């Protein structure tokens, strides 16, 4: 039994790597622990790789529960609920934290209703003082932030990626480790029939240090060819706002924003993107935003550190060429 301000984080590791999103949750939970007093427990859902358990143990949590599945990617979300409920029953958390991804967005609310807990999603901050949980989250298509308070615990919150620095490995006292029963895909009432993964050329958006993204202002699918050429020079990934995806100019998997991916690159080059709240919800945490837009009044210039006004068809090729020259001059990588 844990103190009444115990924090349980639910983590998933495909293969033998503990993903950055998991380490971010650890760091948020450790901060909550420092501000309060309860323990931090982690439920790790994994594919049997011991390396993921070791990596988690090195992050400073007090207790680890773990459950294995043969292939998490083929396991419907619902099949994980039994393990999560089992960990909750033992650890009795005040707050359960999950990553706000396709999985967490389903599991978090389901778990909350099962536990008769508060359910809050896509948090950019979670704080607790004297048994009061306060969550901050974007709303109205990213135009505003709301603070939601829960006086009654527990609370199940999903947390947006990129809002915490991932916890690094260090020397810690060994956590208590407890194995739970395996995850049974057949426990889900939904069955995965097939999965078509889009192959990613080059860098994944989620991992990219530099992203070049296009919007409605590209005026057609052809514009993405110019963006790809620039991305190739920069070693960047290519993304898009919602309109090009909906219009079929690019794959849906390129979408960045409220209904797409959340990215946190060092450099985000937005081309022909107006800067609507629902797009900025996905890229607003980029360290530096560069805007290229024909409309000098576009909202994106309010978020951007650098801006260029004009036709991207002229600007982007010149930018690409100059980047190539700079690379050649410096003789190595840009």
């Amino acid at each position, binding site marked *: 039994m844990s103190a009444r301000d115990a924090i349980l984080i639910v983590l998933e590791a495909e293969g033998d790597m503990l993903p950055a999103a998991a380490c971010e949750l650890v760091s948020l939970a450790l901060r909550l622990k420092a501000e309060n007093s309860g323990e931090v427990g982690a439920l790790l859902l994994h594919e049997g790789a011991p390396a993921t358990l070791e990596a988690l143990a090195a992050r400073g949590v007090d207790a680890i529960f773990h459950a294995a599945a043969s292939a998490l990617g083929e396991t*419907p979300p619902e099949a994980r609920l039994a393990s999560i409920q089992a960990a909750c029953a033992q650890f009795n958390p005040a707050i359960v934290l999950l990553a706000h991804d396709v999985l967490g967005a389903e599991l978090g609310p389901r778990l909350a*209703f099962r536990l008769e807990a508060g359910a809050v999603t896509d948090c950019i901050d979670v704080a607790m003082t004297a048994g009061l949980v306060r969550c901050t989250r974007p709303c109205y*298509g990213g135009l*505003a932030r709301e603070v939601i308070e829960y006086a009654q615990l527990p609370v199940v919150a999903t947390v947006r990626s990129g809002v915490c620095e991932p916890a690094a490995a260090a020397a810690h006292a060994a956590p208590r480790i407890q194995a739970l029963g395996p995850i049974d895909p057949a426990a889900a009432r939904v069955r995965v029939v097939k999965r078509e993964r889009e192959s*990613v050329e080059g860098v994944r958006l989620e991992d990219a240090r530099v992203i070049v993204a296009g919007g409605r202002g590209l005026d057609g699918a052809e514009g993405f060819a110019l963006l790809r050429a620039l991305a190739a020079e920069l070693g960047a990934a290519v993304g898009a706002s919602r309109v090009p995806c909906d219009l079929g100019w690019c794959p849906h998997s390129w979408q960045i924003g409220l209904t797409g991916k959340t990215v946190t690159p060092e450099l985000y080059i937005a081309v022909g993107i107006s800067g609507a709240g629902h797009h900025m919800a996905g890229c607003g945490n980029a360290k530096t935003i560069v805007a290229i837009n024909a409309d000098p009044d576009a909202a994106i210039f309010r*978020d951007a550190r650098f*801006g*260029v006004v004009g036709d991207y068809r002229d600007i982007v090729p010149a930018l690409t060429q100059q980047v190539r020259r700079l690379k050649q001059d410096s003789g190595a990588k840009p």
Partner: protein
Amino acid sequence: MQTTIGNIGKPSNAACGRCGHNASREINSDRLLAWILQRASARTSHRFEQIDPAVRIAVLIKQVPNPDALAAVMRVDERACRIELPPGHPLVASPFDEQALEAALRLRDQRGAEVKISAITLGPDSAKAVLKQALALGADDAVHIQDAALSEPDSHTSAHALAAAVRKLGGVDLVLTGRQAADRDAGVVALGVAEILQLPAVTFACAIEAAAGALRVDRVLPDGIETVEVALPALVTVSNELGAVRKPNLRETMRAARKPIALWSAADLALAPAQLVAKAMRTGLFVPRKTAQCEVIEGATPAERGAALARRLHAAGLI
């Protein structure tokens, strides 16, 4: 009224279900079997005024301030923790919910009139507009949940009210709604409804079709498309990738005026007091401050500005 099919596996139950004797019927997985059996069986028409359809879909629709027009006009009253809109700012059906209705209509396009669609909303007087729109698009009937006790619902109270309405409708095989409402963007209520009704849920659907023995749903994942199968009854949330929605036509709009909209209160739904108490309290609402000062890159031509940008980013150590 439409005629439909009597022989759907449980004829005594199905032929005149809407006439009252099985009005309290719970969600029932036999309905799926019935649907499948019916496809194989010879079809017999019955001519009742009100006939139980083979598959019943409930679409949950929320009325929201038009999200596309929000950026220019929305003001935040930080003290009252609410947004302020200019008078006359249009209230619309949340676009994801419109796509959920579209998914229901496409299922009916596949299956014919045997699919019956009910639209459900929770909201004030104005919310009736989203039900009228759904009826004009082809929904068969509608339910408006309205109660002073639900005037400021959170996801907990909303889910309980909507789940109770689905249960009261009776015989619902499929609940469809948007992936999230386009105001709070939370995506909690649908999954709450699934939990309360103990339904399997499939999220982020971009295509739904009736397949042998199950519903087949394509889901949008960050790295591609996943196809899943789920037996009915089930709940599915629909994402924007479903594609464009249809417009109301004149014939349906004329017919819509005669379609029923039931008005149900918390008492009608037999909601328990605890189900009417919000768990969440919004104690803050603000617009994030933007600190970045944009440095506009100058140059005589766009191409010169492009090259200048590269040099500036290089000088700043960004590339």
